[in-house]
């Protein structure tokens, strides 16, 4: 059995369990698409980003956009005849890596059938040739940034004089926050461990979670792909011409790693990892930085404060006021301040900075 035949057999299995009976809603699909937006663009002027653009994806042969660097697996599938339609897209989106081992798409999948159907309806509105695969009700093209409909005031009008006034504060505005509400939003963690949730995870458990969710941008070993942040390595580079500021080489506190992963990662799918998952990924990042070496090392709320990052001591408070140029408060010179005529020592046009060359990038990398 050839590789592509095996792949089609796998798709067939998934197709059997995929039903498109549910009504599709392109508006709801636009919402689902927010999960995809970090990597894919669709609509007028959409260009390839981390993933290929999705205009006219219906009826398109897999791996057929020129100039986009597909995974080997996707290219093989494309040349084997895989064409995107309702069935194949639904199968792929259910669990991309299950249908296509080796795909670059890091997204773990849309578990809900309804989400998939809605997303496909949304994408279809950007595929003018999708008539053959049209759903019973062809959705109209949607404006992604459609203005929200004016919202009616929710509360029933109460006579102003009958409305109760809270007793707190000076202006008596706002209402008490409920314990559950504070718990839902208060997820920050401090270096002393305040805020850590109960939980645990090992290096070994973290590896597959990292590979599935993080490696697409940060690299298999935290080395970073493209201009995405480098997470590991870089020890003893802080005085180099090109310092590498990683968790192991630069970050002062481990709490920041846990806090940031939990609040903002994976990029484009924040808050999708469980607390235990975040412990496991954090443990794995310690391993990638050689701060722990045992794959069975388990990080938990109980032992979290035992691990310190190597660069903690190398931060100091703002002392710009003490710099020479700030302590000399003399009246600045107005005439004959420098000898001789000004000569150009460096020009912007001569200092060539090539967009694609890492060596040539400016000092001000922004992430």
């Amino acid at each position, binding site marked *: 059995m050839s590789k592509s035949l095996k792949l089609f057999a796998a798709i067939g299995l998934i197709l059997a369990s995929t039903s498109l009976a549910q009504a599709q809603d392109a508006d709801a699909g636009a919402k689902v698409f927010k999960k995809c937006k970090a990597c894919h663009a669709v609509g007028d002027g959409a260009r390839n980003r981390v993933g290929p653009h999705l205009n006219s994806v219906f009826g398109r042969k897999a791996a057929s956009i020129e100039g986009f660097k597909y995974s080997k697996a996707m290219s093989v599938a494309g040349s084997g005849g895989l064409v995107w339609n309702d069935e194949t897209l639904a199968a792929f989106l259910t669990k991309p890596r299950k249908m296509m081992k080796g795909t670059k798409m890091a997204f773990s999948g849309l578990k809900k059938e309804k989400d998939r159907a809605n997303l496909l309806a949304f994408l279809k509105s950007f595929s003018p040739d999708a008539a053959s695969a049209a759903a019973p009700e062809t959705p109209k093209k949607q404006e992604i940034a459609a203005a929200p409909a004016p919202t009616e005031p929710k509360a029933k009008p109460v006579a102003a004089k009958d409305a109760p006034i809270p007793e707190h*504060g000076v*202006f008596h505005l706002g*209402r008490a926050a409920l314990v559950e*509400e504070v718990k839902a939003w208060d997820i920050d963690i401090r270096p002393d461990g305040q805020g850590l949730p109960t939980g645990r995870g090992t290096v070994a458990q973290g590896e597959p979670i990292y590979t599935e969710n993080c490696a697409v941008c940060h690299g298999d070993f935290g080395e970073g792909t493209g201009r995405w942040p480098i997470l590991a390595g870089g020890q003893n580079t802080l005085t180099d011409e090109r310092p590498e500021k990683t968790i192991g080489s630069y970050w002062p506190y481990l709490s920041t790693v846990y806090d940031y992963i939990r609040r*903002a990662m994976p990029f484009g799918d*924040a808050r999708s990892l469980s607390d235990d998952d975040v412990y496991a990924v954090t443990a794995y990042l310690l391993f990638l930085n050689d701060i722990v070496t045992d794959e069975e090392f388990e990080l938990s709320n109980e032992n979290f404060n035992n691990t310190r990052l190597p660069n903690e001591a190398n931060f100091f408070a703002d002392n710009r006021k003490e710099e020479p140029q700030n302590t000399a408060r003399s009246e600045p010179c107005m005439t004959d301040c420098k000898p001789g005529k000004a000569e150009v020592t460096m020009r*912007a046009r001569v*200092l060539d900075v090539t967009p694609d060359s890492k060596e040539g990038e400016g000092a001000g990398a922004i992430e």
Partner: protein
Amino acid sequence: MPEKQIDRPGTDKGLSRRKLLTAGVAAGGALATGAVSAKAASTPDPLITEIQDWNRYLGDGVDANPYGMPSEFEKNVVRRDVAWLTADSKSSINFTPLHELDGIITPNGLCFERHHGGVAEINPVDHRLMINGLVDKPLVFTMEDLKRFPRENRVYFLECAANSGMEWRGAQLNGCQFTHGMVHNVMYTGIPLKHILNEAGVKASAKWLLPEGADASAMTRSLPIEKAMDDCLVAFKMNGEALRPEQGYPVRLVVPGWEGNMWIKWLRRIELGDAPWHQREETSKYTDLMANGKARRFTWEMDVKSVITNPSPQAPITHGKGQTVVTGVAWSGAGKIKRVDVSIDGGRNWKTARIDGPSLSKSIHRFYYDFEWDGSELFLQSRAIDEVGNVQPTKNELRAARGVNSIYHNNGIQTWHVKADGSAENVEIS
């Protein structure tokens, strides 16, 4: 043809490095096509002697644009990005076109953008602001609640700590939009933060705040309580209208004079605590690496700074010698700008420029230096001095103190080399 637009470089969005590099070249040719003002007329100007379409036919009626837009001849006046700076547009930056603006206020649609997880789209009726932590009573406010507090109107600059960060190793980007465009100046309408905190009752042990955004990066920064109780605002209007989505609609924090990253957009929560949180954006980022490998943290205040916006690489002199306006902007996180000096010979001699327009604390100031250009090359510099007495340093003074790896807080004096043809270039000089 006076109506013809000067061919400005890079009118497409997302200026590539290649275009940046050729920008100076295109601008250099501008003198030939744009120099019309000083010529004596030998034949009558048909724009005067012939009746023009706009003088004969009716134009659009009211409501042709329910929300008014700039003239079609201004379509090149836009924010631009430098694609190679960042990995992805969702966590990226673009730049205010300073060379196209005048006065002190930045129009809302031209205020530079900086996002860490894209623009959050929030219906204001779905937005909540929570105050929790070391307070007597944790509270939740709706936007309607917030608009019942007493309001204030204040004009403040917002500068990204990384503004001019690409110039630490030397002259790099050819245009003040790119070297200095991570700044804007806006009049905010908002509520003094202290009113909102007092409503919840701040405990004596509370020394720090953690404002948090509702966006996909849930942006957070630690803020000392003295600043919060001093001049911070919780703002919902900019320049009279609702905040733009990319500036934090429906509500953002205003932290006057301090680095832009702390001005949390889409503000949804403020926690009070007794110690700083050391979040990602105040440890791995927005800390200033020194030459010795140690790093400064909590470098909040933005230093005194200025830049000449015209002429500059994207805005060459097109009119030949004679009466010439040099203009630019100056600001300081420490207060008002007291004085701006301009040099046309690379810092050998300085003349004090004229500040015009409102002079407000922690706001951009507009300065002008009107002079007669003799047509010879210029090395233009500006040097700002604030009311506290801080003097804008040279780039070499900063490098001597910090090395070249600190990325942030580069307030060094900028040099533009204006050549005999009127084109201008970003240079460093002896």
